[in-house]
């Protein structure tokens, strides 16, 4: 990628060569450059090639410049000694050094000004570099595998519903992998959360269950040990081996003799056969598995959140695997698609009942999700763009600020310029001088920005990892992309804040500049409004950011106060997972029943229940359903996908969710497989299925493929309607919910809910005794979490996202406000200083101090008003854009618009008032005398 950009830039530079030289040599030069680049890339890797290519680019730029100079000299006529000028090239290095030295001296003369400028730039650039490095780690940095762009995800697509995908079965995977012609290899894998025994406690880590060709296909060499063997992949194989990540190895003391040691995973011993290299964190940009297990142990470790029975991997109707293929050398994506489509058609005709409706497509691998359907990066990309454009606005404000400061300064330096122009210094030279100064500033700012970016994103990541039980793969370190982006910011700011003022400042007429005092006479010193445009733009951009900030803050406040629909006070939640002990179904079922009985009998516990999932948890499961009376295969039938939870008796009372009509589940429905299947829906789902009608007593049906259980295939009666739950702060829409009883089928990982009599304080006090009760039931029970329900919501990811968004924008908005205030103050102070003499004369002629104050303040008011008006328009537009992300805010809030404008207006007016007061307080005699 970078090579292509480099050679394109190289070619572009060569186009600037003088025509004579270009037509003769450009093609040769370009060819040689590209040959070299390829050569270095092959031998030294892409980083070496990048550095090498950059050096070649510099050579081209230098050469082109020199050739142009020579051509110019030649054009000037025979007087110029062409031949000798060629051998004595115009060495510009000296003048550049001279400029740099002069620039450093000038900057050092005003250390305060220089420090402020560098700080402003460092903040602006640092913010950009920080946000960029986060998204770089998420979306851009390639995962550590060989040639990641040759890896494609394979997806099992439903032919009649192209939006619908499902995972692959193991037999389908074998068939595809064996006969594919476009891929050199296809791997299968699936993630699972497993319990890893460390000392006496069980830690939950991510494991990737992979086919035996996984590491070989990805091109990841093991640091120690071996990869998995084909016999370890056979379904039901009893060979328990594991490969550990480098970080897990380090976590366990970097033991050099780790190979052959036994890890206890889900209560069973696994032999460590390999250690992975440090940079390899799996296939995703976010989740970093710590353990890799062979496909043969799939049934022992896979998570079953949906409560379906343990399925057999060798069964063709068990669809649970994700596939990734490596394209053969020379094969294209289109060939891969055609190949897969052909294979899928053969599978479909061989197994019409299972594969009849499905085809297989290849798509690029998403960076941030493991999913059965392609294209999961889009929302993150959208967020990235939004955040990056906001940070760019902050940088823009910072630049306008500097432009103002620079302009104010260069107007005082006008005499210096005039003298130099009069002495024969060319305008070009002057501009170069100013640009060198600015470049020094920008460079210092960029370094400060990079420093900021080296620790700021890490803080953010640490705050998110505290909430999540897993290790994140995100590596925030700089790479050439971050450095390039920072450099880009640097150049961008240079152009915005330096080039324009430099052009303007040097356009002055030397005669006028030299005349003592110039135009700073009695009248006519008012700086025309259009020259104050940068300040107004700055004000408007700052207001826009403030409005967006306000929206985020309001959303986070509303979210934390939000009506969740149930009563969390006095509630407790415990996440437990007996499968991590390696219990089988019967044993885990009886353990859970004993646990439930034990907790229900505890004093102070009003009620307790089990559920497969918990509102505001990290996992959400959905099932597609339809009305039972609608035909199962009809096209235009409402088929909502409510969030699906398996619950026990007393669940709704324990959660504090009101039952609107009908009944709740009974103890028999909780425990007995003989109980007939029933469901309870929430109001939202009832309204979607039967709008305007009573849902009680009606029947639903699971859409095909949603359930494996025989007795759930038919119509299922709705026995109750409960209130709605708002369990997502990121969207204002309520999602529908569907509840079904366990009917004895307790899955491995469950959430124990309990309601304590006596409110929140009692709940906090009950925590230790609940823990004791759990451990009394099963002394080794892995308690993955135990907290009060309120605390659980406080710690939930969706609330974190809203709050982190609010905090980020408070930072942006605060920074923008600060920069704008400094900018307005700087410009006003400068204008006022220039008019001090005028004020003095006016006051000598009888103008009052108040009149003088008003005179000065009037301009500032106008400035603020125009800027705010523009900002309101911008802010309204930006607000419309972001409000779709936010909880609660149905469109723009007038209060937010008003508050933001008020805050910005007052700060801006204060910044205008301070210098104005100083001017009005001036002694006329002094003002008239001062130069």
């Amino acid at each position, binding site marked *: 990628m970078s090579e292509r950009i480099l050679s394109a830039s190289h070619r572009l530079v*060569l186009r600037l060569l003088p025509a004579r*030289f270009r037509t*003769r*040599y450009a*093609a*040769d*030069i*370009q*060819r*040689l*450059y590209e*040959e*070299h680049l390829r050569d270095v890339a092959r031998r030294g890797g892409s980083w070496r090639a990048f550095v090498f290519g950059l*050096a*070649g680019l510099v*050579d*081209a730029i*230098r*050469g*082109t410049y*020199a*050739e142009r100079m020579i051509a110019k000299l030649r054009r000037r006529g025979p007087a110029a000694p062409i*031949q*000798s000028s*060629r*051998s004595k090239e115009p060495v510009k290095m000296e003048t550049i050094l001279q400029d740099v030295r002069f620039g450093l001296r000038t900057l050092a003369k005003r250390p305060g000004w220089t420090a402020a400028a560098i700080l402003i730039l460092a903040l602006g650039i640092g913010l950009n570099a920080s946000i960029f490095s986060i998204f770089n780690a998420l979306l851009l940095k390639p995962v550590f595998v060989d040639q990641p762009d040759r890896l494609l995800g394979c997806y099992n697509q439903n032919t009649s519903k192209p939006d619908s995908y499902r995972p692959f079965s193991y037999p389908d995977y074998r068939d595809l992998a064996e006969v594919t012609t476009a891929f050199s290899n296809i791997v299968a894998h699936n993630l699972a959360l497993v319990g890893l025994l460390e000392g006496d406690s069980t830690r939950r880590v991510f494991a990737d269950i992979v086919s035996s060709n996984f590491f070989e296909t990805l091109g990841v060499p093991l640091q120690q040990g071996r990869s998995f063997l084909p016999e370890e992949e056979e379904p039901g194989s009893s060979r328990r081996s594991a490969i550990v990540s480098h970080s897990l190895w380090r976590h366990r003391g970097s033991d050099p003799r780790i190979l052959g040691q036994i890890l206890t995973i889900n209560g069973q011993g696994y032999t460590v056969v390999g250690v992975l290299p440090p940079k390899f964190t799996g296939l995703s940009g976010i989740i970093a598995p710590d353990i890799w297990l062979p496909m043969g142990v799939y049934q022992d470790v896979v998570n079953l959140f949906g409560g379906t029975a343990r399925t057999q991997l060798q069964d063709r109707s068990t669809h649970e695997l994700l596939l990734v293929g490596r394209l053969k050398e020379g094969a294209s994506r289109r060939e891969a698609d055609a190949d897969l489509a052909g294979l899928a058609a053969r599978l479909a005709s061989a197994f019409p009942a299972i594969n009849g409706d499905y085809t297989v497509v290849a798509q690029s691998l998403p960076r941030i999700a493991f999913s059965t359907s392609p294209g999961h990066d889009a929302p993150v990309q959208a967020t990235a763009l939004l955040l990056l454009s906001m940070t760019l606005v902050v940088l823009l404000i910072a630049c306008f600020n500097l432009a103002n400061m620079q302009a104010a300064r260069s107007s005082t330096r006008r005499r210096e310029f005039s003298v130099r122009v009069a002495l024969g210094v060319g305008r070009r030279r002057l501009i170069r001088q100013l640009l060198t100064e600015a470049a020094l500033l920008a460079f210092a700012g960029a370094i400060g920005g990079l420093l900021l970016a080296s620790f700021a994103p890490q803080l953010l990541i640490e705050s998110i990892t505290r909430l999540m039980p897993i290790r994140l793969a995100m590596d925030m370190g700089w790479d050439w992309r971050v450095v390039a982006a920072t450099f880009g910011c640097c150049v961008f700011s240079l152009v915005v804040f330096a080039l324009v003022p430099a052009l303007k400042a040097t356009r002055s007429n030397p005669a006028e500049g030299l005349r003592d005092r110039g135009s700073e006479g009695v009248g006519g010193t008012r700086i025309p409004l259009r020259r104050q445009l940068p300040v107004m733009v700055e004000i408007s951009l700052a207001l826009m950011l403030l409005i967006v900030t306000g929206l985020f803050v309001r959303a986070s406040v509303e979210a934390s106060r939000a009506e969740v629909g149930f009563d969390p006070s006095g509630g407790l939640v415990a996440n437990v997972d007996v499968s991590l002990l390696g219990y089988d179904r019967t044993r885990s079922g009886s353990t859970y029943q004993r646990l439930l009985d034990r907790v229900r009998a505890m004093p102070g516990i009003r009620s307790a229940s089990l559920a497969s999932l918990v509102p505001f948890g990290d996992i959400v499961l959905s099932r597609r359903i339809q009305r039972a009376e609608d035909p199962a295969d009809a096209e235009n039938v409402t088929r909502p996908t409510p969030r699906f939870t398996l619950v026990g008796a007393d669940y709704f009372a324990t959660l504090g969710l009101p039952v609107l009509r009908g009944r709740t589940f009974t103890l028999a429905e909780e425990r007995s497989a003989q109980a007939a299947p029933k469901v309870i829906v929430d109001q939202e789902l009832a309204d979607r299925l039967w709008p305007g009608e009573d849902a009680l007593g009606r029947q639903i049906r699971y859409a095909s493929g949603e359930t494996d259980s025989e007795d759930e295939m038919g119509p299922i009666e709705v026995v109750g309607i409960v209130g709605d739950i708002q369990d997502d702060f990121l969207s204002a829409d309520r999602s529908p919910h569907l509840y079904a009883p366990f009917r004895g089928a307790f899955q491995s990982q469950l959430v124990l809910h309990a309601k304590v009599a006596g409110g929140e304080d009692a709940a906090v006090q009950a925590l230790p005794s609940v823990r004791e009760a759990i451990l009394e039931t099963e002394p080794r029970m892995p308690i993955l979490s135990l907290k009060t329900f309120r605390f659980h919501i406080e710690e939930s990811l969706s609330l974190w996202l809203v709050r982190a968004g609010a905090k980020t924008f408070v930072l942006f908005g605060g920074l923008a406000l600060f920069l704008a205030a400094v900018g307005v103050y700087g410009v006003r102070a400068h204008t006022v200083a220039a008019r001090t003499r005028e004020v003095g004369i006016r006051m000598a002629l009888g103008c009052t101090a108040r009149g003088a104050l008003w005179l000065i303040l009037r301009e500032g008011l106008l400035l603020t008003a125009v800027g705010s008006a523009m900002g309101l328009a911008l802010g309204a537009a930006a607000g419309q854009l972001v409000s779709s992300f936010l909880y609660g805010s149905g469109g723009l809030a007038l209060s937010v618009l008003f508050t933001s404008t008020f805050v910005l207006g007052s700060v801006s007016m204060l910044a205008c008032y301070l210098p104005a007061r100083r001017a009005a307080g001036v002694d006329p005699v002094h003002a008239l005398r001062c130069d």
Partner: protein
Amino acid sequence: MEERKRQPLKPPRYFILLALAEHDSHGAEIQREVLRLSSGQVRLWPTMLYRTLEALRLDSWIEELTGPEDRPAGESERKRYYRITDQGRQALRIETQRLSELVEVARLRNRRRKEETA
């Protein structure tokens, strides 16, 4: 011209002349040869290489071979082949002479210094 010939040659020019002294050659090969001759010290980046070649050509120290009979059999016509001229050889000789005299002086001085300290 005489004046210039007595001036030290810049390393890229000297090495290019040296690379062409034995046989005719083209851009990429000259570049490799220069890198080898200078033990990796003088790397001629593409633009620099062709600019120096052009300068040497304008000085008539080297010439570009245009006829197909000049290039080795089987070589692509896209490659520009160069040959050193008599003037170029003279410049090379003068510079080599200068350098060897310099080396001689350096050795002498070094020896004298050693004897003094001894």
